[in-house]
């Protein structure tokens, strides 16, 4: 790709970006949200048409007028949100759109053979008849890869492939990538997880503000340098210093023997004012389910929840909110925001009664609080009336935070607070958590990023099979110990 340009109204998304990917290479592409990575890849996949520049495959200039062209040229795209048909099985998804036929009828046997051949080559096993909606994230991803290969993809673009994978699944994915590399397949690998790039990538290109800033072999680009190039300014230490918890700090949240229908089997812990408690564990261990039960997103089936010493009967989100509990969910698009509403409407949604007179909404009060929050959280938006769908991931996350900071919550439950958020916004979200602590809040943080749990929590609790199996003070929490406890093996 040479000199690619693309503009949207008011935004110059790509400003002469060039990128080359060699056969059998994994080329990492990093940059903050909104830097232009996704736009560039969508142009490569034929989903957007470039305003300028050229694309050549195997040295031959090509024109792209749609996704079909990309497919024909052997370019496969695996988006972060998968493109599988939920009710079709693995085989049907793999051959979707290129189904073998006999006359007018589908040739099921041939379809199964093809899918099995591809999966066999890759050495992976999938439940072939299971509908995609019942596959794990990792299985869906493998299906996507098989889908690309069955179309003879020689270049595969992967957007945040490990964001929702466990460490073991990540290892398996990397092994698979290495295998395909050896067969000459090239990869463009987009990730926010900078620490995994040296394991998988050969070269790296940093994109910032719609320009390719630098391309180097990965060995010559230490992580600190990546971050510096991405943000364009040196970043303070990745995690801010946590102020110590006062020895006489009151207990904000006490959970005793909490149980819920799925994956919460007797969880007990306490969080004090000014304290961050990190919940570590594998995906599916019950961390998300635990915080959801505390917040009433799923109604607990047993146990006790107390805020400031008072027992709260959590019968749904409303009762938890009234008790001062705020849940910042892991999936902001599906659970945190009404994407079609604007910043103001989202900010006040959880505490609308505070900005109303009787049944009527007090527009001026609403506007005032939103303006304050936009300034305080440094939400980058043209105005309070901007539809949140049009904001970047980091700014959307800040709107979610604004929604919960407007109330008088004293217990904040963060579920994957920085997933899919760029480096700059991450630092701002951490700073905000410190602000909440200074106000006397207690924080529970669920995170699959081990450095985050270790760097941003006073205490680390390890969850496995719906119970807490280990607790580490900040100084004792080493990656090896936490991982061992999470996996249930001796350290």
């Amino acid at each position: 790709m040479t000199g690619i340009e693309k503009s949207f109204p008011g935004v110059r998304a790509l400003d002469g970006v060039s990128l080359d990917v060699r056969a059998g290479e994994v080329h990492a592409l990093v940059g903050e949200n909104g830097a232009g990575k996704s736009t560039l890849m969508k142009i490569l996949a034929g989903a957007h048409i470039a305003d300028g520049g050229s694309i050549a495959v195997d040295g031959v200039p090509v024109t792209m007028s749609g996704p079909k062209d990309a497919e024909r040229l052997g370019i496969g795209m695996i988006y972060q949100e998968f493109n599988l048909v939920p009710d079709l099985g693995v085989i049907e998804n793999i051959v979707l759109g290129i189904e073998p036929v006999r006359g007018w009828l589908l040739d099921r046997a041939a379809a199964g053979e093809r899918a099995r051949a591809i999966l066999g080559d890759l050495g992976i096993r999938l439940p072939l008849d299971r509908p995609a909606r019942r596959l794990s994230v990792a299985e869906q991803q493998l299906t996507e890869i098989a889908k690309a290969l069955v179309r003879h993809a020689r270049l595969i673009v992967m957007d945040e492939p490990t964001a929702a994978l466990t460490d073991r699944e990540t290892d398996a994915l990397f092994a698979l990538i290495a295998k395909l590399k050896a067969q000459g397949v090239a990869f463009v690998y987009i990730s926010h997880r900078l620490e995994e790039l040296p394991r998988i990538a050969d070269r790296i290109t940093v994109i910032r503000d719609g320009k390719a800033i630098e391309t180097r072999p990965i060995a010559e680009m230490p992580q600190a340098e990546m971050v510096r190039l991405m943000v364009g300014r040196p970043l303070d230490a990745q995690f801010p210093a946590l102020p110590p918890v006062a020895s006489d700090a009151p207990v904000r949240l006490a959970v005793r023997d909490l149980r819920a229908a799925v994956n919460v089997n007797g969880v007990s812990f306490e969080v004090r004012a000014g304290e961050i408690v990190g919940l570590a564990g594998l995906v599916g261990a019950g961390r998300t389910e635990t915080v959801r039960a505390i917040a009433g997103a799923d109604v607990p089936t047993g146990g006790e929840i107390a805020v400031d010493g008072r027992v709260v009967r959590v019968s749904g989100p409303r009762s938890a909110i009234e008790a001062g509990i705020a849940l910042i969910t892991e999936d902001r698009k599906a659970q945190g925001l009404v994407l079609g509403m604007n910043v103001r409407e989202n900010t006040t949604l959880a505490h609308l009664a505070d900005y109303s007179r009787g049944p009527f909404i007090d527009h001026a009060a609403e506007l005032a609080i939103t303006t304050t929050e936009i300034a305080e959280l440094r939400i980058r938006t043209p105005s309070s009336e901007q539809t949140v769908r049009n904001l970047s991931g980091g700014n959307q996350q800040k709107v979610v935070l604004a929604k919960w900071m407007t109330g008088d919550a004293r217990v904040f439950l963060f579920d994957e607070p920085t997933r899919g958020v760029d480096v700059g916004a991450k630092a701002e979200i951490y700073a905000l958590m410190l602000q909440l602590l200074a106000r006397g809040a207690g924080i529970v943080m669920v995170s699959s990023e081990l450095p985050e749990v270790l760097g941003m929590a006073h205490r680390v609790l390890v969850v496995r099979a719906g119970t807490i199996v280990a607790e580490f003070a900040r100084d004792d929490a080493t990656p090896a110990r936490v991982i061992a406890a999470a996996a249930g093996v001796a350290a």
Partner: protein
Amino acid sequence: MNRPIVRIALAIVAFVVLVIVVNAFTGGDFLTAGNLTNVLRQITYNAILAVGQTFVIITAGIDLSVGSLIELTGVVMAQFANASGLSGPLLVLVTTLVGIAVGGGAGLINALPVVRLNLPPFITTLAMMLMARGLAFHLANGRPVPLNSDAFTTLGTGYALHDLLAPLGLPGIPWVVTVMIAVVVVFAIVLNRTRFGRYVLAIGGNEEAARLAGVNVALVKTLVYVISGACAGLAGMLLMARFQSGSPNTGIGSELQSIAAVVVGGTSLMGGRGSIVATFFGALLIGVLNNVMNLIGIDSYTQDIVLGAVILLAVMAEEIRKRVFAK
């Protein structure tokens, strides 16, 4: 260009141009006070149904029962009025409340399986459509129930502001039209200015996000169907007042007319956004079209073809407009 005020202004300009063209077509018959009054009177029932329907559709639901509920409430009200022994304005008031209660109660029955068992509203309201129509025929023994009172005559056929407008050679504004305007204004305020209205929009936009923000989703969704049923009760009362009887077969197809008005007004069937005022204009557009085709003398079969085409074109135009401005 996407600001509501601009859209409404554009709609009004388009409307004025349309009116002028249409008037020329009808040789001047269209733009007469009498005819315009007639158009407004004819759209009253559909506009009121469509107001309730708008709330339902914003939550990504649908209410197919409103046509039958016009009939059921009409029959129940006519029988109640005949048996009550009341008279005058008190009779009108109490009877209206009965109609609204019956309609609202039917809405409640529509809503419960939707919010409790997560059944599709298409099914629950389809079932109600059949049951309410059957019940109306049953209660009325298959014939219209004539009103034995003239208390409703003024409301159904009379005019407000008669004395004020008489010197201008106008009969006044039909009472039914004033009721419609009141309904539109009140519910436009409810949707745009109240917490309830905000919650309706939030649920349509992202039900799970609304629930986790503490919104009582089940209550809000229930109320939406109750409102739709109550609007059907009110429309049923006005229809009964106009024809001096409650009839079990006047509402056939009304539910689809009301959905058409909502959609032509630009409310998305996917939920999350919509406007009461726009719905009113949707109903008005359909009403004007019917009226003009009558004036020109187009037969009713052709009218249906034209109406269907206009609905399709209106929605396509809205979609294209959205895409152009989204770029």
